[in-house]
């Protein structure tokens, strides 16, 4: 088993795509450890892993995000956010945070959100006197903190893999997102007491109303998704297809930004990204079968208990491991690797799997933007054209705040689960 881990790490280090590295490790594992098992298991696990109505929500939410981006939604949302909070001490910093929440509500991909936010906000921030590195750091923090906002793709994958309710997890993600947003805005507010930053004049009612109406159709989208799922009327997949249809309709007819050419591009991008995510899920299925057969989770659990570690130390250890590992391996693929090992362990230690999922995904938000290797961080640095090192240092204090909120979520599960309880979903 240790030999297999070495093979896997070697393949990763050589830059073999993660999905393929998992597949080959699985194949080697079958050949060496279980020659009695038919190699057909590889294709059966791939087919079986993808063959799921729940996972169908992923292409539809990807489509929604692509259609929203092509429909010129981001500009309207950012404009509204600026008019709403740009006059508060800390100025545009707050606008970046609120834009992040708005954008996350219509798209499931946070790296994509980061790219959109970065091209929409960094030039504006520079114009009013922010250092480019500071501007990029704000964008990173904003995109990272909204990872739990529905419709989060990470939540769909986690729910599917651990057999927990995606609808409940979606609702559970709302308050943590708002809490992190509030914490970061407080951070920006306090910071602004010690440095001079540009503050917008207070917008008139007329201006705000105008911006609100212009963004209204897109603001309706997260509400459609949430009401649909909360009502229990539709499954997340059905909500996703309705959202996708809505996004396409307003992009094509109300905003007139999506024609046939754009539609073709949206379809292709959706198909390719779906392929990337689903192949990961399929090949992770081969590995998790092998891990279960070799009783690896039990071995690690016994070892962890023998060191005298309990629930709390396991939570803290998990967060630190997740942040480091997810930064190295892009969130979702890393999540697929740790779920089969860590979730059974968490359950043995008496941690609620849904609570553990919220922590795991919140840690992803920090990890994706962890300098110098987080993918989201690199995307922002590239799209904004800012110096990597300086941006990294400017970002660290914000990540610190996010990390603290993540630890708080770990020890106060009520933050996430009070709302689903209140709505009678648990």
């Amino acid at each position, binding site marked *: 088993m240790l030999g297999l881990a070495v093979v896997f790490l070697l393949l990763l280090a*050589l*830059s073999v795509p993660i999905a*393929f590295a998992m597949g080959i490790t699985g194949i080697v594992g079958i050949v060496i450890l279980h020659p009695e098992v038919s190699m057909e298991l590889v*294709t059966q696990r791939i087919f079986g892993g993808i063959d799921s109505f729940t996972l169908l929500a992923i292409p539809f939410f990807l489509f929604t995000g692509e259609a929203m981006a092509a429909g010129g939604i981001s500009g309207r949302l950012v404009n509204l956010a600026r008019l709403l909070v740009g006059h508060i001490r800390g100025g545009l910093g707050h606008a970046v945070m609120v834009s992040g929440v708005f954008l996350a509500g219509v798209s499931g991909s946070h790296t994509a959100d980061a790219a959109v936010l970065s091209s929409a906000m960094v030039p504006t921030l520079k114009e009013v006197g922010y250092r480019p590195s500071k501007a990029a750091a704000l964008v990173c923090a904003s995109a990272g903190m909204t990872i739990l906002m529905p419709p989060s793709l990470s939540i769909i994958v986690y729910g599917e893999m651990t057999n927990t309710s995606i609808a409940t997890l979606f609702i559970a993600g709302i308050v943590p997102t708002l809490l992190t947003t509030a914490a970061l805005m407080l951070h920006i507010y306090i910071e602004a007491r010690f440095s001079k930053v540009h503050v917008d004049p207070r917008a008139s009612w007329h201006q705000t109303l105008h911006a609100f109406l212009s963004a209204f159709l897109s603001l309706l989208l997260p509400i459609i998704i949430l009401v649909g799922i909360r009502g229990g009327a539709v499954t997340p997949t059905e909500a996703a297809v309705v959202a*996708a249809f809505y996004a396409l309709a307003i992009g094509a007819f109300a905003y007139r930004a999506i024609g046939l050419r754009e539609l073709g591009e949206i379809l292709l991008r959706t198909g390719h990204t779906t392929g990337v995510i*689903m192949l990961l899920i399929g090949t992770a299925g081969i590995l998790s079968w092998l891990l279960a057969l070799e009783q690896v989770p039990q071995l690690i659990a016994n070892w962890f208990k023998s060191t005298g570690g309990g629930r709390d130390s396991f939570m803290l250890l998990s967060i630190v491991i997740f942040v480091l590992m997810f930064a190295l391996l892009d969130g979702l693929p890393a999540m697929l690797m740790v779920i089969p090992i860590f979730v059974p362990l968490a359950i043995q230690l008496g941690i609620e799997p849904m609570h553990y999922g919220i922590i795991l995904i919140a840690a992803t938000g920090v990890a994706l933007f962890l300098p110098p290797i987080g993918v989201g961080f690199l995307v922002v640095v590239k799209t904004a054209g800012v110096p990597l090192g300086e941006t990294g240092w400017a970002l660290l204090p914000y990540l610190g705040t996010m990390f603290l909120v993540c630890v708080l979520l770990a020890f106060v599960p009520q933050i996430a689960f009070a709302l689903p309880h209140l709505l009678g979903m648990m």
Partner: protein
Amino acid sequence: MAALFAASTKWLERGITVLEQILLCCLVVVMFSLTLAQVIFRYLLDSPLVWSEELVRYLLVWTSMIGAAGALRLGSHFSLITFVAHLRPRAAAAVMLVVDLAVGIFAAVVLIQGVRMTMFGFSEQAVSFSVSMGWFYLAVPVGGGLMLWHVAARTIGNWADKASLRG
């Protein structure tokens, strides 16, 4: 002769890519329409479709396998580039060859085992409609085959470029 071989590979790769993209777009459109129809039939017309849910699940497998092959051609699968980013050109080319070999081996296993699974699947029927499962299992070997082809085409292309530089 070698130049002809390289040129025909390039030409074939272009054709396959176009077909692959058309198929991918159609699959997403069909999945989308069927699921939307399912919602409309269940909630608006109150007469749920019994077969749509199973069918779109299988179409998702088709979309995923074709999409994954396309993503391989575009180089958009996640990979860890931290350690290989600063290699010299010569070492980078060697690593690239090893990576392509690894991807090729995996794709070949998927192709071969997928064909076996598909052959077997033709004696099985879908649960909620009478179509042979073989048509859906077929997605797996087709995806594996396309991946293998893309990797081979890229390797041949690189080799031809190098040969033409030398010549």
